[in-house]
């Protein structure tokens, strides 16, 4: 099996897994969910690092990679922090009066 074939299998299985997991998320948490998956998809930072840190990088590719690292880092940092900030607000009855 070529590596692309494996990749397509991985994609298909991950997508199905995603469908099953997300269907179970309560609509109560749809906003934090979106903000969390957003932070997760900032995994693009991996590609950005590989390009920015490469040995034989031209000015152009280095600049593009650098911008991409900045943008992904914004998403990683603010994504996780905001998700947590939102989730902290969800309290059950009785729990809020301390």
């Amino acid at each position: 099996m070529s590596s692309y074939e494996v990749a397509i299998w991985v994609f298909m299985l991950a997508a199905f897994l995603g469908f099953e997991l997300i269907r179970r998320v309560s609509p109560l948490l749809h906003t934090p969910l979106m903000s969390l998956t957003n932070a997760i998809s900032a995994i693009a930072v991996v590609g950005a690092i590989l390009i920015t840190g490469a040995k034989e990088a031209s000015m152009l590719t280095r600049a593009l990679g650098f911008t991409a690292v900045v943008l992904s880092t914004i998403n990683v940092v603010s994504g996780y922090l905001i998700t947590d900030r939102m989730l902290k607000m969800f309290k059950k009855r009785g729990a809020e009066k301390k």
Partner: protein
Amino acid sequence: MMQSIFPVLYLFAAASFILAIKWMSSPTTARRGVIIGEIGMLLAVVGTLLRAEVVSYQWILIAFFIGSAIGVPIAYYMPMTAVPQRTAFSHACGALAAALIGAAEYYRQMPHGVVMIALIVEMLLGFLTFTASMMAFGKLQETLPQRPITFRGQNVVNLGILILAIAIGIALIISPERTWLFPIFAVLSLAFGVLLIIPIGGADMPTVIALLNSYAGLSASAMGFAFDNKLLIVAGALDGSSGFILAVIMCRAMNRSFSNVMFGAFGTIQTSTKQTTERPIRSATAEEAAEILDSARKVVIIPGYGMAVAQAQHKLRELHDILTKRGIEVSFAIHPVAGRMPGHMNVLLAEADVPYDRLIEMDDINPEFARTDVALIIGANDVVNPAAREKDSPIAGMPILNAFEAQTVMVIKRGMSPGFAGIDNDLYYMDKTLMLFGDAKTFVSSIVKELNAVAAAS
């Protein structure tokens, strides 16, 4: 040795992301989900920095620093009411990052075959999601008009641009050396993103934001194919399927298809000519409203986008508190498309310290309305419009909250203007309906004042 550890770290990172989403299913485990997600991201970044291909660090570290310096203040100082805008903005950042990485990889390698196909998909989705998200951001921030902007032949023009972008993409896949085609490809993709959002109105934003979320994820997944990186594929696929499911849920909650949301330019057909006869309505003051609420046993509050605009959520919590204290059962009925993004109302009410077990989904609350004394509607319109049950209505078949089944219906509203769908709401003219005219926040706060006075007197 250290350099070959990254596949293991990537594997753990992928598992962490899956667990993170699994734990999001319930509010009791959700925060754990965030922590495991952070760990996953940390493993992925550390693993990547250790790779043999990464030799120069200074620019990466500077970029980390700048990104954090922007991201941390956004996270801490952004008001919760700006969550939809922030979400659109982060879709834009993520998509642009993916597109730029694709462009860099293209200029670096000039790859052929499968890699080039993946890069073209990545960049097409990345560029169009970037401009589309910026447009969505502008509409949510109200720097751009929320009304749909349409022109003749719009769908033909849009489709033409998309087809042209794809055609040039295919030409680039066949011979990547034709670098002069690349900027044209980028510009067309960017332009398509703008045109895609122009005809979409404010109330369709929940679907559109979910869909853009999906595109941003798929773009990251395509990057995984280009870099032969399974972690990127998995994380992108999770994000892609998440956004897609949310978009499907939103469409279902409006009984509309994807294509209708994206190409229908809903809300442009104004029925201003149709409705001419003045129908009688009953209005009431805050004092009267407070009296009715005080004699109720079961009250259901239905918030909509108007509550978010008026920032009435904190006052509503006060109303919830005082009514609960007086032995009245209060719950909030949440329609899936209330607000500007999936779950919007829940976050605002949670911020105002309304306990989350009082926020009830549509399917669970609807059987309750027949036993409800007062349904209090705040800034919601189409989601309670009984016209949805008629065949020839523009919102026909849309699942609604059955507020009309309650003993008394109270509607806080600025005036009699129709809702987003541009149709009149029969609910307002029912005998049991009281219209409470005024700003949502001010009105709720006067009701609370009246109730406090009653409480003090008794």
